[in-house]
């Protein structure tokens, strides 16, 4: 059966390759270059945009009498601007000659950006991006006009990464807005944004942003190479890209950070990371990423450092609780009864007296119910969401205990675990921790504390063996770098964060002048 499966896989693999080649070839069957004859061009364009009602192909006569053609996608461009600044001058201006596109752009078109197109591929790409194309009879060069305008939501607060104190702007879908948001934060011309198109059908714009002389040049090269390797039909979200470029596809841990926040993306840029933006996705990817950056929240850097450090420690504690609490409970209850203080043991024993299931099954049941409730609450329409939490949290929790299916201590354990996992600021990191809880629970039920240790050792070995774009995942703890721990074990004050992290910002070490610690004596110092 496995053999048949692989054969099938091989076959489908080949099929896909053939198809993509066919998709590429289709364009090659058509004439590549625009022709001088407008009639011929029009036929080709009609053939390309066959059965597409939103394509507008509008013939017109220029003021010198030449036939012209305008092609655009309805709904992607500003028709008012076309009327006023393109069609009006072309059809009304007296001294217009259509044989030179350059003079038309220079003298007649009153729009800010216009480029020349020579091939059909260029033409298709421009039209798809919302740029109308004008062609003239007797001229093999077309003109693309940047008058795109499409519906988009406004820049608003990122819902997945909220802060009490901090900026409220988040990335939105159009790439051009997102790059502009980055530019707004980092105005230096050293911020470079390269783009490429990925996806044979979707032709999605993907931008790589980095800061020249801060980001390692080999990192930029590596990121570009990984992106160039992608050969898919479409990129619908940055998650598609993430899965194609991460180092260890089977690892449960996210090796590329995604963020909706412009300030987070900017801060990573300033530390020498690369930010990948995908058109149509409000989620920016940050590479390389370490385990500890998944435990940081934007607000850590806006609050005063003592508070941030305390909260960070709390998070590490909750990380351990979220991962191990149910398995520790099960292990203590099924194998290590002597570990529990006597009074607690007796009260747990009393609570468990009527429970028909072994502790492991009980824990499994409750954890699965919790995950289902979480997932259900997430996917439901907003109006029904609260209903799920009422049914799930109140009725199931309370009734299950009263009915003697689960014990009250178990409900507490599951609740604490759930809440702890939500204290991890990155949702995807929280999920991977929550999923790892299940194998650990299973090991605890099978082997007790020994099993938990085996599981934890496995997780730690895995964590310390993986890398993200060449950076060890557990850096700067393993390999240890004392200076970089200033942002891991604690969050040192801004005036002490003089150097960039070594593994990403080595080439431009200092990020601020040293000795900026404020004090009363320095009050009037200028």
């Amino acid at each position, binding site marked *: 059966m*496995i053999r048949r499966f692989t054969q099938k896989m091989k076959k489908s693999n080949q099929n896909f390759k053939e198809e993509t080649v066919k998709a590429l070839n289709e364009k090659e069957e058509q004439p590549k270059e625009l022709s001088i004859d407008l009639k011929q061009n029009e036929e080709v364009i009609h053939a390309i945009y066959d059965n597409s009602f939103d394509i507008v192909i509008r013939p017109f006569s220029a003021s010198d009498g030449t036939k012209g053609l305008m092609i655009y996608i309805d709904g992607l461009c500003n028709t008012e601007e076309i009327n006023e600044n393109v069609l009006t001058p072309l059809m009304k201006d007296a001294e217009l000659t259509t044989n030179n596109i350059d003079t038309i752009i220079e003298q007649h078109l009153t729009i800010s950006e216009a480029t020349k197109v020579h091939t059909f591929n260029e033409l298709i790409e421009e039209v798809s991006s919302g740029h109308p194309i004008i062609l003239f009879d007797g001229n093999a060069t077309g003109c693309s006009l940047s008058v795109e305008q499409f519906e988009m939501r406004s820049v608003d607060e990122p819902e997945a990464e909220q802060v009490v104190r901090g900026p409220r702007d988040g990335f939105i879908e159009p790439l051009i807005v997102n790059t502009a948001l980055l530019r707004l934060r980092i105005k230096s011309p050293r911020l470079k944004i390269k783009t490429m198109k990925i996806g044979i059908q979707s032709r999605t714009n993907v931008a790589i942003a980095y800061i020249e002389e801060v980001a390692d040049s080999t990192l930029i090269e590596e990121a570009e190479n990984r992106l160039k390797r992608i050969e898919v039909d479409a990129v619908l979200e940055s998650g598609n890209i993430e899965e194609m470029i991460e180092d260890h596809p089977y690892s449960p841990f996210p090796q590329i950070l995604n963020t909706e926040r412009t300030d987070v993306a900017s801060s990573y840029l300033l530390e020498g990371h690369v930010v990948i933006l995908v058109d149509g996705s409000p989620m920016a990817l940050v590479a390389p990423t370490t385990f500890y950056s998944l435990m940081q929240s934007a607000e850590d850097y806006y609050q005063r450092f003592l508070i941030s450090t305390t909260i960070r420690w709390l998070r590490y504690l909750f990380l351990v609780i979220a991962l191990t609490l149910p398995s520790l409970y099960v292990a203590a209850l099924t194998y290590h*009864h002597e570990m529990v203080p006597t009074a607690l043991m*007796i009260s747990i*024993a*009393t609570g468990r007296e009527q429970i028909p299931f072994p502790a492991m099954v009980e824990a499994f049941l409750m954890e699965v119910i919790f995950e289902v409730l979480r997932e259900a609450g997430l996917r439901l329409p907003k109006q029904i969401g609260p209903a799920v939490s009422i049914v799930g949290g109140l009725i199931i929790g309370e009734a299950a205990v009263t009915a003697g299916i689960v014990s009250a201590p178990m409900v507490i354990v599951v609740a604490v675990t759930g809440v702890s996992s939500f204290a991890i600021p990155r949702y995807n990191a929280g999920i991977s921790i929550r999923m790892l809880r299940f194998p650990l629970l299973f090991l605890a039920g099978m082997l007790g504390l020994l099993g938990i240790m085996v599981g934890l050792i496995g997780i730690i070995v895995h964590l310390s063996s993986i890398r993200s774009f060449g950076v060890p995942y557990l850096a700067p703890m393993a390999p240890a770098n004392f200076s970089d721990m200033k942002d891991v074990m604690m969050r040192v004050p801004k005036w002490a964060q003089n150097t960039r992290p070594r593994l990403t910002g080595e080439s431009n070490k200092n990020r601020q002048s040293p000795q900026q610690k404020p004090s009363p004596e320095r009050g009037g110092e200028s």
Partner: protein
Amino acid sequence: MNHFQCKKILHRCRLLIFLSVLTLLLSGCWDRQEINDLAIVLGAGIDITDEGLIDLSVEIVTAQEGQEEEQGGAQTYVESATGQTVVDATSTLQQKLSRQLFWGQMEAIIMSENMAREGVHGSLDFFARQPQTRLRNYIYVTEENPKEVFAATPHLEVSTTKTLAELSEFQAGLNVTTLDFLRALESEGEHGVLPMVETLPQDAGKEEEQTDLMGNRAALFKRDKMIESIDMDITRGVMWLRDEIEGATVTLSPERSEGLISMYMIRSDVNFKPQIQGGTWKILVEAKSEDDIFQNASNLDLKEVDNVKMLEGELATQIEDRMRETLEVVQQDLQLDVFGFGETFRRKYPEKWDEVRDQWDEKFAEVEVDFDIETIIHRPGLSSEPTGLPEGEVEE
């Protein structure tokens, strides 16, 4: 995805399936034990029957939910069985129980005096050898049948064992764990001492079906056999010398005044300084005690430094008297080194110790004991002058 990668994934899949199948062969969960299947032993009592059989009684938690909600705690009951050894008795006991005996939460062992006089090491071996038991549980001797002690239904705690553990932790009496006791048994320069526990007789104001426990006496051991029981005063003295006294109250009647003053000791420290001069073995007991005045029923003005100094002196004398009295009984009459004098000599004079180690008990009786007692009275309390006395009657 090329052919090579496909093969690699396939290889991994096969390996994973193979390994998963292998796990089915493993006999996992072999010592898994659900809490519901355990009979949690809180305390064990060991007695010896007239036929010389071990009579083992255990206090077991009955986790009944209905009662838990009303009382906020579990109920216990006592089950017992006899056998040639403790383990033998255990197996008989197990036959009477529907759940597996679990020793891991045991907090107290009570031995009957009869049993203790016969020798205890054989029975204690079970608790030391058994991996489940904590050696940090408390251990007691009782003149009564341990079953009667377990049958006591104390007012304040839910079970006898809990009461005993709390009593020990409160340091009202001696506080000896199984581990301490076994160490003392093994040590050459020290004899064991265990607290004794007894049920209190009915008294006015108590409910009839409830009995309380008290443990302020002690049993002295020579090797593993109990020799003598000592009363409360001597026990306090032993506790002083073993540096185990805590939270004691001392009442004395000052010389220059009428009436009594009670002090509460907040801190104490006792050290032994061994010395061998020629043939005489000497030990200097250095004691330090810090006290607060809790009650002044005399007419002494405690604002006066001289008065406090005098009190400190009298307190020191009182402590010394208590210790001397204890030594008279324990050192001279019983000749049992329960204080660890031998250990301190062994540490300081290992060669000389080797000469006397076999006759330490006789040598112990000859050891001269000196005292150096320092007392400090920290706080006279809120009212420094005696309350309710006219100024004229106050002694300054």
